[in-house]
């Protein structure tokens, strides 16, 4: 096992790639009782078009299938229920799917050996039947309806839909109702056989464990299993234009105050040669924070003028050669805020003090993060999926951030491809306050 030590924050990371290709990471933290394990397939909702294992032609899967598959892996041939198994051992388990990964997890302080064997076994032994696939559809459609009642979630989905032409990131992780209804067990096996090979998976263990002991448990579990040969996964690449699909949309739903969303679609290809994707994220995050959090004069001013009352939110989404920035605000002055934010984002007036304070804050947030075995664990699979390497030396990463590079990036970003969305209340009288 390779061991990397980061003495300053009392952290060690162990890594070994098993013969079957499974990448195992262990972060022992013996000051806590809990143990958290994630078993991650590098397969998310955006991997919709690919050449299935053993075939030669591209196949387009229904949207939402990665998430559907996640639900169905809990189905066991024996009729056993993983929830029941883990509860019996005082552990809790769950699973989740996002754009880029699907992961199965458990956490619990006791019975580690049994728990990890069970997790590996249930994920590596699929059992799909026409009947169990059919019964899942209404459950997932109820989940979809739950999300549709959440204005923030729905707004986010619409911005992505209006921003991207080809990139499957335009469709929500859960898929469309029509596609969910069309999924068959054959579809599920195709996806499973292609993406759930150990060489496309990461196993991460964090918490109260001894690395030498547990790597043996994992090895002996994997040695006894047969997998098909490693294969290269071919996923369709898209030629995504820089322009958005639709520049604006307005619709009504049950909200008490209009929700405004602005999505900026930014091509980052030209920067990637000089700055890493990760650094682009750090810089952009710092920039947006200084510009649009409660620390900014701009926001102070908007509050003063009663254009907004609450803070505005922003997020940055990784979409291959593009980055999507989504800014969200609640206000009756819908048109005005779009104009003001759009003007503000194009001005780089950050001074070195702001920048240095953000560096401090960046270090702090990573130190806070390193206290949580759950966040540390998630960071490993995210680092691997987005950067192909794991980095934990926060002091070093922070030191490497510099103001010149920051300015060069920010000054050269093109903020001209944007889409806006206004969610107005159903009550028409409230719409006229703009």
């Amino acid at each position, binding site marked *: 096992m390779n061991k990397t030590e980061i003495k300053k924050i009392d952290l060690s990371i162990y890594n070994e790639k098993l013969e079957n290709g499974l990448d195992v990471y262990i972060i022992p933290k013996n000051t806590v009782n809990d143990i958290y394990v994630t078993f991650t397939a590098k397969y998310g909702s955006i991997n919709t078009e690919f050449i299935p294992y053993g075939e030669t032609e591209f196949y387009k899967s229904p949207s939402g299938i990665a998430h559907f598959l996640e639900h169905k892996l809990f189905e066991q041939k024996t009729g056993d*229920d993983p929830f029941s198994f883990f*509860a019996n051992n005082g552990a809790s388990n769950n699973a989740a799917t996002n754009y880029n990964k699907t992961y199965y997890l458990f956490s619990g302080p006791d019975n580690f050996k049994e728990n990890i064997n069970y997790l590996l076994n249930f994920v590596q032994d699929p059992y799909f039947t026409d009947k169990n696939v059919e019964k899942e559809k209404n459950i997932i459609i109820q989940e979809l309806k*739950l999300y549709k009642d959440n*204005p923030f979630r729905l707004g986010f989905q619409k911005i992505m839909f209006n921003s991207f032409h080809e990139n499957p990131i335009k469709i929500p992780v859960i898929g469309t109702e029509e596609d969910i209804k069309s999924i068959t067990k054959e579809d599920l096996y195709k996806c499973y056989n292609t993406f759930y090979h150990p060489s496309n998976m990461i196993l991460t263990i964090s918490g109260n464990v001894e690395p030498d002991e547990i790597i043996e448990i994992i090895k002996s579990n994997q040695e006894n299993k047969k997998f098909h040969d490693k294969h290269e996964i071919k996923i369709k690449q898209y030629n995504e234009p820089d322009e958005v699909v639709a520049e604006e949309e307005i619709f009504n739903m049950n909200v008490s105050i209009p929700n405004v969303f602005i999505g900026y679609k930014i091509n980052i290809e030209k920067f990637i040669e000089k700055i890493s994707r990760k650094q682009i994220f750090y810089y952009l995050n710092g920039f947006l924070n200084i510009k649009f959090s409660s620390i900014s004069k701009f926001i102070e001013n908007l509050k003063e003028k009663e254009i907004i009352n609450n803070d505005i939110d922003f997020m940055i989404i990784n979409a291959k050669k593009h980055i999507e920035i989504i800014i969200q605000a609640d206000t009756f002055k819908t048109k005005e805020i779009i104009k003001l934010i759009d003007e503000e984002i194009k001005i780089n007036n950050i001074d070195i003090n702001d920048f240095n304070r953000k560096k401090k804050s960046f270090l702090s947030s990573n130190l806070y993060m390193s206290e949580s075995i759950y966040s540390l664990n998630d960071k490993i699979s995210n680092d691997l999926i987005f950067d192909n390497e794991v980095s934990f030396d926060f002091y070093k990463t922070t030191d490497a951030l510099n103001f010149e590079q920051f300015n060069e990036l920010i000054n050269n970003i093109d903020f001209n491809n944007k889409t806006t969305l206004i969610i107005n209340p159903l009550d028409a009288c409230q719409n006229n306050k703009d």
Partner: protein
Amino acid sequence: MQYNKVNIGKYDVHVIKTDKFKTISVRINFKNKLTKEDLMEKFFLADLLPFVSSKYKTERELEIQSEELYDTNINIRTSKSGYYRVFSIRQTFLNEKYTEEGMNQKNIEFLKEIIFNPNIENQQFDEKTFNRIKRVMFENLRSTQDNPRAYSLIKMREAMDKNNFYAIDPFLEMDMLDKITSQNLYLSYINMLKNDKVDIFVIGDIEIDNIKNLFNSLIIENNNNDKHEHKVENKKFRKKEQIIIESFNSNQSKLAIAFKLKKLTDFERRYVLNIYSHILGGSGDSKLFKNLRENNSLCYNVNSHYNNIYNILEIEAGINSKNFDLSLKLIKEEMKNMENGAISDDEINKAVNTYISACKNLYDKQNSIIDDYLAHEYFKNDLIEDKIINIKKVTKQDLINLSKKICIDTIYLLKGESENEQN
């Protein structure tokens, strides 16, 4: 880990010394008898206090200072605890070992500045800030209507018994909140410093003497010797359940059911109820999850939870309203079956093991350790070691006995008007 309770003049400082964490957490609790009026004032005060500092005049200055202190995190919340109201101030910051020397003291000074040195003029809080926070608060309260789950629970509790402390919610009291002025909020604040019971908790790798010095001579009078119990017993029970259906513009309907618990023993409230609720609807392995979701595909989420201070059990599910009758029937059947003894040893073991794991994991987080000592201070709850011993004593017969003390009260359906649209 070493716990010490030190009396400093009029208040107690509880120090939990441990080197397990990179952070230090502080909690200051002000506690007093609950009245609706006072509760609303303290809800307001919790939102206002961080932003009305006399040293950090604007939100921006406050944020900048908090970044200078390596992202110190302060939050204030008001909650109900049976017959009491608790105004709770929490701070977490990085131990100076990981940042800069002197930061521990600076962080605690910052917290004290926020709590004890507000911007006061003519016996009232700064009016401009007061008005701004009021706007924010009202905007947030109104947005409860955007969240069908939160809305359905509030409305269900109101329908159950709107005079019960359990049902009081700021969303339902916007008229009362609107009448609060900067003057009476200031009086409420002063009153709190004079008349509330105060407990201060500090956890982390920090010396007791340092903490004593930092929390010496606060302007707290603490004239409160009230030793009344927190828990509220139900006195009125419905002979027949009430069913309330309200329409809502949503894609999914929400079913919420409330039950009142009748004269539980302390052992039942603290232990049996937890196991009961876990088996019924507390996990992905529960009776309700299996029957409603897995066997009948009626929902994505269904669960039960309880409040053992107010003696209430609740069940909620997101369904299609055409399945309302069937869902309700299945829920009632599962509960009836439990009353008739359909509880396996396996189910009890699972619930007990889950409880024990949760107890062990409490020690992994500073705030849960504080919660544990606080519950001991307030309700004389057992500490973790005793909890682990006692939970194992719960038997099937205990669960059957508890089942008979659960009285259905209100069934509330928030009916989604757009639930059959496919869009």
